[in-house]
């Protein structure tokens, strides 16, 4: 075989000394189809990055202004579409805050359980997809298998796998079915087993560790002033979790811990999400016990409030009595009459602080529905994580902030 003996001197190949611009996305598989990054590269080092979201903008806020308060629910499903029930809960709580009503205890616990199931599915998707982007396909498939079981339980309750639109202003569309308790109790250990099995493939894997540890670092100070929240913020060591700091629903009655990271790197974000799935499982198990303790027939034993100005009357009555027909008609056509005012209500969504800023001028239509999308702010902080790193490290770093197009671009 001939030796490779290239004469570099005589070959007039000039390597560019200027930084090279590279366009990454939006149709790049690791950009999840909705983000474009314009990079300025020096060799393989990222000197400058301009992240451009907006490819999935569907005018959520404008559409919300055009319908009634209840008609926003289907849109919220499509914000963070891997944990739609958490968005439903967030919006329902915001309108209820503006109305000044509280859901009965059973309804609150029900929201907590379904919300935490959603959180598990969110974190499974994110961690699985991140591992897949690093070449580990098996954990991704296993985690999606587990996510499917979670969705089966959600389907049993809500009738839909993905876009549930299940919660209502003042409660939920339906009470827990008879299968709910046994189904969820059986599901949790199975899901956790799959989670443990999947991460056992990753956490001793040299490739996975090398690609994630010390990569995409976000500092504490930067995370806070950038408004990063959820796992991205907690991975830097700040223990801010809305469920603990300002407990809503029945989160104050259950015992769980808030995992925090140390370095704020991709590995820590992965581990925080992993530990949060385990904590969610704890919350669900305790909440199922709380649900059992509710005395049947007591005022707590209802998923919705009974105010006919807010909640639709039961269907049998709508079909048989004129009062209920009128109430139903007025609620559907005119919407819930929300008093004038403005509130900002926030919950812990899949990606962090999911806030709704609502302005009402009275009447059945919102004046302004603003959603504070957690991953929009995390994506902004992502600029700092990427800058100065290697081109190839963008992929796990971007994967670990769990950018969900629907929520980010609204």
């Amino acid at each position, binding site marked *: 075989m001939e030796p490779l003996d290239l004469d570099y001197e005589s070959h*007039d*190949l*000039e390597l560019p000394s200027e930084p090279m611009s590279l366009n990454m996305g939006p149709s790049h598989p690791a950009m999840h189809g909705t983000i474009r990054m314009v990079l300025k590269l020096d060799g393989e080092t990222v000197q400058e990055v301009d992240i*451009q*979201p*907006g490819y999935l*903008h569907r*005018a959520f*806020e*404008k*559409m919300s202004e*055009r319908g009634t308060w209840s008609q926003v629910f289907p849109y919220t499903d499509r914000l963070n579409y891997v944990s739609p029930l958490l968005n439903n809960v967030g919006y329902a709580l915001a309108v209820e*805050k*503006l109305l*000044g009503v509280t859901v009965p205890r059973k309804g609150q616990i029900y929201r907590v359980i379904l919300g935490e199931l959603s959180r598990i599915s969110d974190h499974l998707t994110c961690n699985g997809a991140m591992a897949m982007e690093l070449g580990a396909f098996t954990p991704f498939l296993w985690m999606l298998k587990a996510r499917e079981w979670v969705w089966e339980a959600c389907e049993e309750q809500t009738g839909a796998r993905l876009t549930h639109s299940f919660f209502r202003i003042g409660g939920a569309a339906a009470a827990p079915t008879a299968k709910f308790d046994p189904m969820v109790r059986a599901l949790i250990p199975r899901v956790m087993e799959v989670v443990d099995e999947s991460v056992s493939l990753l956490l001793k894997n040299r490739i996975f560790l090398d690609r994630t540890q010390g990569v995409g670092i976000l500092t504490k*100070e*930067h995370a*806070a*002033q*950038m*408004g*990063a929240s959820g796992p991205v913020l907690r991975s830097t060591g*700040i223990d*801010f979790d809305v469920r603990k*700091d*300002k407990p809503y629903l029945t989160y104050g009655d259950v015992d769980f811990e808030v995992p925090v990271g140390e370095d704020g790197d991709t590995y820590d974000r992965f581990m925080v999400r992993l530990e949060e799935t385990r904590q969610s499982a704890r919350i669900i198990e305790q909440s199922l016990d709380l649900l059992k303790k509710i005395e049947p027939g007591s005022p707590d034993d209802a998923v919705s409030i009974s105010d006919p100005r807010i909640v639709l009357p039961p269907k049998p009555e709508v079909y048989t009595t004129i009062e209920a027909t009128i109430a139903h008609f007025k609620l559907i056509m005119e919407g819930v009459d929300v008093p004038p*005012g*403005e*509130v*900002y209500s*926030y919950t812990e969504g899949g990606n962090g*602080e999911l*806030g709704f*800023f609502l*302005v009402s*001028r009275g009447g059945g239509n919102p*004046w*302004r529905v*603003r959603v*504070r999308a957690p991953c*929009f*702010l995390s994506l*902004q*902080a992502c600029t700092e994580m990427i800058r100065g790193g290697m081109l190839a490290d963008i992929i796990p770093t971007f994967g670990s902030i769990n950018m969900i197009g629907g929520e980010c*671009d*609204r």
Partner: protein
Amino acid sequence: MSKLILDRLKAEFGGDVLETSTFRGDDVAVIRPSRWREAAMFVRSDPRCDCDYFVDLSAVDRCDPRTDDLDMDDRFEVYVIASSLKLKHRIRLKTRVPSGEDPVIASLVPVWAGAGWQEREAFDLFGVRFEGHPDLRRILLYEEFKGHPLRKDYPANRMQPLVPYREGTVPLDRLGPFLTDEGMPLNRSPQRDDDRDEAL
């Protein structure tokens, strides 16, 4: 708890805090637009407020085109929510941007870097300009978009014009379809580039 911030603000800014209110547990202070950035800086740096955590910034269009004049005073209300991670309180500061065709307010990027994208979004959707913003471009929409869709006088069913090819450094029309003798350039050999120049 965060009554304290409202009191601190009133003590510091006096008449420039136009109103304060607490509704359903949210503490709100309306600031005179001329001292917008100063007030935000105070809330952030004052040790007893210590609002180091940026939460949200956006705007509200207060004009109802059915009843109000589009040039009404104080048409746009910009708000910012900040919170303290240590003291666990939060506050919403609002200001009413004096209107006109071109509402302008001071940018809060020097206070919280996180305001950068949120202000770009408010600029994009409401047309509020933030003075001192390092990179004020549209963020969710494209640069050729006409109008600002979250303004109340923007009809939701308005059609946007088709966008012509962008003129720029990247010759988009050269990316394809290729001539018969052209393919995607796979190497950077100078010779090949010469060939192409001749072919053109």
